[in-house]
């Protein structure tokens, strides 16, 4: 497991931190080593972000490189396009994914296409960060996870970290990538667990899934905030002598199906877990490809454990909507039924 190695390699600057700290560390690191990196968004400068992800950046790098924008998401993404074409590397923040829609036109029609439409003359190395997903008892529109919408668009990368160390390495990779990356931060696990983060500037590869736990009987495929649930489910299954492999997709677009397929070829069983609505979600693509390409290897139908095809209920009922480890275990056991 390559990422485990990267995460544990000995270096100088290791500190304990949560996912949010990792995001902050990566931003600090890259702004220090690369002058072209700038940060913009609502409340990112003076306030350090409503989740404190950008805290300290304004003091260190000044208002010139850390910019509080007027309240307009189309503006934020469109200005990032304009900056990116002029040699800057903007990292912009959309305060919650529920407010990302006005940013779509610039993201889809321009960021994703600038290199292609100019045959490489111009490019758009920008990162659009957004806290995403439910589970923190937030008001309406603060719990969306619509990664599938972005993943369908050619020319963008969509990345979702699921641990502090991966958040650090993937965000560095996203900033260094020469093309636009949407970096979705699962806020349900923003502060749930600490991990040593090695602030050594080492990026993790994009375009690759991470196998977090090896197993032989079933493959659990997920990303973001559902990863802890998947790992917990794997533990539970282990108690029933079922050996589950857990794969963190991490980069949803472009999708590394090789890792997923080679896992399912071995295990013959597959459960895909995500929090977004089921229909036309990212799980559909993975399920489709697994079934299309492991046709002779699959021992049972692929299972999807997902949110429902309805709006995330207001927070009193959000737990009814969110998949959890019991749901995953149940789906996994389903694949062992005759």
């Amino acid at each position, binding site marked *: 497991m390559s990422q485990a190695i990267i995460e544990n390699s000995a270096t100088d600057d290791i500190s304990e931190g949560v996912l949010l700290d990792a995001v902050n560390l990566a931003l600090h690191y890259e702004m220090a080593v690369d002058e072209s990196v700038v940060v913009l968004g*609502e409340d990112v400068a*003076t*306030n350090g972000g409503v989740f404190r992800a950008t805290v300290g950046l304004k003091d260190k790098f000044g208002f010139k490189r850390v910019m509080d924008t007027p309240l*307009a998401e189309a503006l934020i993404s469109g200005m990032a396009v304009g900056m990116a074409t002029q040699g800057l590397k903007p990292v912009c923040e959309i305060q919650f994914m*529920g407010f990302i829609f006005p940013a779509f036109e610039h993201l889809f029609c321009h960021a994703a296409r600038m290199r292609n439409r100019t045959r490489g003359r111009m490019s758009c190395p920008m990162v659009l960060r957004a806290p995403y997903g439910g589970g923190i008892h937030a008001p309406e529109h603060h719990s969306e996870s619509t990664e599938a919408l972005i993943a369908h668009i050619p020319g963008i990368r969509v990345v979702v970290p699921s641990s502090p160390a991966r958040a650090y390495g993937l965000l560095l990779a996203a900033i260094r990538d020469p093309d636009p990356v949407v970096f979705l931060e699962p806020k349900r696990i923003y502060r749930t667990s600490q991990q040593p983060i090695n602030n050594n500037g080492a990026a993790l590869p994009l375009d690759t899934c991470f196998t977090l736990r090896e197993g032989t009987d079933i493959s659990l495929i997920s990303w973001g905030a559902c990863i802890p649930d998947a790992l917990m489910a794997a533990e539970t299954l282990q108690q029933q002598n079922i050996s589950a492999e857990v794969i963190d997709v991490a980069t949803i677009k472009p999708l590394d199906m090789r890792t997923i397929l080679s896992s399912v070829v071995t295990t013959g069983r597959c459960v895909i877990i995500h929090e977004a609505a089921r229909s036309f979600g990212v799980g559909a693509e993975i399920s489709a490809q697994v079934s299309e390409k492991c046709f002779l290897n699959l021992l049972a139908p692929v299972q999807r454990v997902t949110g429902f095809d*309805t709006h995330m*209920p207001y927070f*009193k009922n959000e737990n009814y909507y969110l998949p959890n480890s019991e749901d995953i275990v149940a789906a996994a056991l389903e694949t062992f039924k005759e």
Partner: protein
Amino acid sequence: MTRLNEQAGHHALLDFHLEYIQFVNEDSEWVAERPSFATDEWLLKAYEYMVLSRVFDQKAVALQRTGQLGTFPSALGQEAFSVAVGLELQSADVFVPYYRDHGTHLLRGGDNAMSNLLLYWGGDESGSSYGPVQDFPVCVPIATQITHAAGAAAALKIKGSDQLVMVTIGDGGTSKGDFFESLNVAGVWQLPLVILVNNNQYAISVSRDKQCGAQTLAQKAIGAGVQGIQVDGNDVLAVSQAINEARTRANEHKGATLIEAITYRLGDHTTADDASRYRSAQEVKEAWLKEPIKRLQTLLNNLNLWDSDKEKTLQASSTNLVEEQVDIYLKTPTASAQSMFDHLYRDWPDVMNEQLDMLADKLERN
């Protein structure tokens, strides 16, 4: 501004003029003649609702702090604004709120306005099932409500109605495309629309001067060919006067009005915010000197309409009203899990039955 320079081909084209409304200044002095609508009764009603709004607000914050409510946006200091809106709305008007209009809802939302607001901020959709059938629910995505308001105003016009649409928005909201697109269509279609900007000086941490380079937000009306006016938003009379003028204008088919009300957000943005990170205690202290409730109280005192006994009674009755409503809120049972599907479509698509089965399985499991 360009100075006229005929050598360089310049010719004068147009001039624009902007005004400000204030009746009662921060020292509770009349700076204009008392308007006829501001009868003793009217002033007392405004005061009572402003106080009730504040009591409600403080209670809601307390509920959040004790884990009995979700994130809540206090309207502390902006009571004159939202109460004036509530006072001037006519029952058949369409009210399109943003999320900081508690005072308006108290006047608009019937007996259970407060418990419904608490349900909404407590994470229960049923909080938005109340109120006049044409009024919009609380709107979270910034500035989107103004486009709905423009659409509703167009609907009124199409139907030949004489009513108004009144929409509120924050200062931050005036930077988003929806604000301008809607103001623009209001101008070109001469819509019966009143846009009320609660310019409370902050959009979370972003101060007004970082939001817009113009001296006023009211002047945004000029680019849309719409009437714009700035008012003292801590003067309940000024806000009401501006709304009344806007109604007259709409009734005369002269179109929409943009009202910028100067207020100050005395509290945090929401209970999830800590405003001390981005603004000085001194600034807040100075803002307290202009706050609307004290100002109106002093005015009432000066008019011999108020005394400390009346104040005590009002505080007590307000607290009682709020507590009753909190009780209703806390006792309202949470909706069933299945209710998440109840209003997805009016006609449930049978092809979605699988979803119900999945939920039933989940409930059995968990």
